[in-house]
């Protein structure tokens, strides 16, 4: 958040809730108006305290409002060079542009039986270590692309969404504590911290995007081939796992219906069900030709009709009532 008015900046608070507010001086760019030359960006820092803790929670800091050009590298540099030299193990961002590649997954429970058959490839695409159960490695469709099969990037670097957060994991608990103390000290002393921006933003970013948008055909062709080969292997593996699921009844005695057992099986079954339904209706209709045979039937029919009219009328009246409430009194346009 840059604030162009110096008056407000002076009165900026140093902390809010558990966050310490760390002002970063943004680099100046040519062409910016003079009022923006010493613009500040405010980074909110606190110890990471999620609802579900993992092994790394104790040595992590949570940052809110990270600069849009933040990356693992420049955050690492920020802590190493300007904030007491704490060493960062990894950084996890919560909203990037373009977003991380997201895959579809099975529920963890469903895949638990399939033990020891963890996908050979390490999960590089997502770094969600918190969630990474045994089954996470197996995706529900396609394969997780590796260097060989991944499509070329169309953005030169990932940017962060404005105002998004990040979790910085340090090497050990001590360096995390050191870093947090250093931040608090800097905030207290009003020391200037300079933000070193990431790769090209602005028009450069879009220019590179335009050129990356159309990758060379040879590259596309090779990644596609690699992907499809990997897919074939992964698909047969997945099918084996699912076939296992298919044959084993669960605790309630039901066999889980999964896809893959013959391409169109569920669809075909659905069609059969629909056919049966329509046959039933046909039979009912044929029976209906006996309607009106007894006098009571006619009477009931009339009653029904009357009831229907009454209902319709009531409904219409309510509708008009609603209309009146909505627009007030009926008024001629003038």
């Amino acid at each position, binding site marked *: 958040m840059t604030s162009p008015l110096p008056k407000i900046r002076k009165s900026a608070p140093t902390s809010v809730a558990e966050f310490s507010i760390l002002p970063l001086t943004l680099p100046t760019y040519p062409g910016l108006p003079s009022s923006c030359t010493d613009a500040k960006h405010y980074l909110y820092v606190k110890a990471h305290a999620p609802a579900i803790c993992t092994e790394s929670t104790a040595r992590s800091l949570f940052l809110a409002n990270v600069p849009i050009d933040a990356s693992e590298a420049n955050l690492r540099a920020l802590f190493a060079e300007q904030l007491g030299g704490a060493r960062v193990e990894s950084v996890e961002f919560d909203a990037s542009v*373009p*977003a*991380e*590649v*997201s*895959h*579809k*997954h*099975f*529920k*963890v429970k*469903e895949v638990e039986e399939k033990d020891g058959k963890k996908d050979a490839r390490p999960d590089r695409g997502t770094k969600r270590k918190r969630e990474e159960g045994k089954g996470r490695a197996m995706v*529900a*469709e*396609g*394969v997780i*692309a590796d260097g060989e099969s991944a*499509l*070329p*990037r*169309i*953005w030169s670097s990932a940017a962060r969404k404005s105002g998004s957060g990040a979790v910085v994991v340090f090497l050990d608990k001590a360096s995390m504590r050191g870093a947090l103390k250093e931040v608090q000290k800097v905030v207290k002393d009003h020391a200037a911290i300079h933000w070193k921006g990431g790769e090209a933003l602005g028009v450069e970013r879009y220019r590179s995007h335009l050129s990356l*948008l*159309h*990758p060379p*055909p040879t590259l*596309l*062709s090779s990644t*596609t081939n690699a*992907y*499809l080969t990997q*897919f074939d292997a992964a*698909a047969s593996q997945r099918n084996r796992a699912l076939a296992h*699921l298919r044959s084993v009844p669960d605790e309630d005695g039901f066999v*889980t219906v*999964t*896809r893959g057992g013959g*391409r169109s099986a*569920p*669809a075909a079954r659905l069609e059969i069900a629909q056919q049966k339904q329509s046959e039933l209706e046909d039979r009912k209709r044929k029976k209906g030709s006996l309607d009106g045979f007894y006098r009571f039937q006619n009477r009931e029919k009339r009653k029904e009709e*009357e009831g229907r*009219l*009454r209902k*319709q*009328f*009531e409904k*219409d*009246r309510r*509708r*008009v009532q609603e*209309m*009146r409430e909505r627009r007030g*009194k*009926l*008024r*001629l*346009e*003038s």
Partner: protein
Amino acid sequence: MAPATKRRKLKHEDESSEPDGSAADNHVDGAFPSDNDERDVNDGSMDDLELVSDNGSSTEASLEEDDEDEDIEEEEEVAIETVTKQQRVATNAQDGGKAKPHRHSDAQLQDGTYTAETFKSNVFKLQVDELLDQVKLKYSKKEASAENAMRTLKIIIEQLPSREPQLLAGAETSLKASGVAIPFPSPPPPTDVKYKFRYERPASINATGSYPLKTATRSEEGIGIDLVVTMPKAIFQEKDYLNYRYFYKRAFYLACLAAGIKKSKEHKFKLSFDCLNGNQLQPILVVRPNGNGDGDDFSNSKCRIDILLAMPEGIFPDAKLLPKANCIRPKGDDIESDNKPLTSTPFYNSTLRSEVTVTPYLKLLHSSAANCDAFQDACILGRIWLKQRGFGSGLRKGGFGNFEWAALMALLMQPNPGAGAPPLSSGYSSYQLFKGTLQFLARHDLSKKAFSLQARDVAFPKSGLAPIFFDGPRGLNILFKMTTWSYAQLHLEAKISVDTLGDVLFDQFDSIFILRTDLKRYRYDATLELPIGALGLDPTQKSYEDQLAGTCQKIYTTLIRALTDRVTALDLSLRAHSTWSVTTSRPSDDARDRLLINIATDPANANRTVDHGPSAENKQEAASFRKFWGDKSELRRFRDGSILESVVWSTKDASVSVLEHIVLYILAKHVNDGIRENAHFTYDSFAGVISSGRLQGQSGVTAFAPIMAAFTQLEKDIRELEELPLSVRHIRGADAQLRYTSVDAQQSTPASIVLQLEASARWPDDLCAIQRTKIAFLLKLSELLSASHKTYKAQVGLENPSQPSQNQAFLDITLKTGKHGVPDYAFRLRIHHDREATLLERQLKDKTLDAQSRESAALALALYSRDFLRVLSHTQTVQNLCTRHTALSPAIRLTKRWFDSHLLSPHVAPELIELLVIRTFLQPHPLARTFMCHDRLLTDAGLD
């Protein structure tokens, strides 16, 4: 007659329903017993609850009206009685306690089953009820003050002394002394007239019009209550129907009334003159409250009392006043000469006739209201309908107002021997009466074929195209105040409304009654403003009114002939007259006043550059064509070998439309030379805002022809590629540029197109793998296309990098035309594989997937159906509509432009904007169908 006797008589009548002597009372009383019977029956059985529920008031209401016929004073007496009765009824009902709510709901239910047939729908009926409830006049204390004032006026008028017969000069001076200028119509009476003017006590004084008929509605402008003073027979002679003599005597009589009221010491009113319906032959006296808060002040009633004059029946022979007769003899020729037929004076005759028939019409309306329960409600519905369309009785408001509506409806209920059953029946519901009347107006073009009721062998003048609805028993063409164009407008509006009411999907209540359609900007596309002075007319001249009417008619017929099918409606309008003080003579129009000529165009023909006339061999027609067009007409040989008289308009000057050329040329030639300099023509003024927005002799989609051609070429070339692994099922456009709706016809972004291949079992059954397979396919296509045609440049591009199961790639194809001045066209092709939908749906239902994955599947499915299904069919539909409605494409583009310039485009999907505009084209109710684009924009802006 003293008030006391009146009261006694009334009571007498109330008790015994004994018929009185006069014709009016006879008629009126005829209705009485039936009313009473009905009440008796209902009271006895209590079965027909609906009738009972409002009978209490309706019986009394009719009672009251019946008396009004006879005398205003009685009316008030009864009104008071009515109030007390109603109160009594109310207290009874409260005493009755339990019975009431039950009755109420049952009555409503019956209403419900009943309305299904007699109303359009329950909702429509309920809304109509609510509307009637809103607009009906509550005859309350407020109005009572106006009634009081009327009683006072009546007493004043009755006590005015007679005046001795005197010649014109004497008459003028005697009135000038009391500060009243006689409102003589033009031409004013010659100074040497031999006949004398006199004033006698009036034969009767009545309230008339919608107020006593209980069809008046509340409105912003206040209510006008008509007080009719019937002049005595004694002051007229048999020949007075000739040469304005009746109207001169009438003007004198009115001036005497004005002088009398003005002179009254104890009662003060504000007086002014006006013209009845803007007809200068019929001045009337307008009484307004004095505003000083004394007993005569009726300001709080928001009423205005109009004192009209009527003529007793039986003085002038009816046959002399038929439409074809002549009543204004040429000068210096007072005796009828048989040498040459005299031109008929239908307007003069009808005006005079309308003075005679005031009371007969009042009787007719009252008896209709008594015979038909729904008559009054239908009158009010008609009133609202006319008001929202800007029609009124005034000559300059169309000449079709509330009276004409009510009279038309009453007459349509009368049997007409030889013409089958009457169009309306007294058993109809108000909605049926309303719709039936509209249907009559929509079905009959009365300006082409006159309609006469219970009248045989009545000849009508051939000249002009004024509509005729001749009421035989009363001998009046009730549409005599209408002009050709106002009738055409009424006819059109009735047609639209009948169509609208036929809409089964929507109830269209709003478009019939609530929305106003008299805004000229919405209704017309082009406007020509002409100062009256430019028409060569001088408002101060004696025969100005006649000349003006003649000129307007001439302008209308000339324009209709010149513009043929370029226009769908033409309308001429002038500012209406206002009232004037009794001390001055009638003001004339200002020469700077503008005559507005409004034109609704047919966009397909409006700017056609060539008009074909008759063939050269047809000598007579060709000559008339040449005469009409003057030197613009030329003989041309056309491609099909025909040689025709024709007129060609140049489009060199883009700022002047063909329409403007024609209108100005033809009016200058046939009406007045001065028109060209003084006219102000407005037409399609927003056309310049978007590129090729002006429909100058071309259709609205012409600007997109090159890109459409390029697309067709591309499709053909792709289909011809033989080495494609799968053959092409179809290639369809999915972009605003390919449905004629992008703001600029010039291309700035590649146009999206979608390619669907024939079905194959070799596709993988996995979304991510399908996307990768598509890439392989696009690579192949790109290779083949660039190899087969040098003009194509194709490159595979990537999208959606973070969603591997959504579409990953597209093919950008640039078509290089290589020709100078013709731009390159770029297309962005995506492959549509219908298996994706099935897979996504399956994922949605798949319980083994985690919630997040299913959510992303739902999103992907929505995107899939938008990009590969909806947008395609939308494009197809809009394409068709744009070719069918010429103005649609420019209208959409202009609207998008508006969204752009208000920075609203990011928030509103372009498809939605298109649909909004399309709606106004497909559901134009209550407006007519054809419009130019800028009017659409305005309508749209109104909607938003």
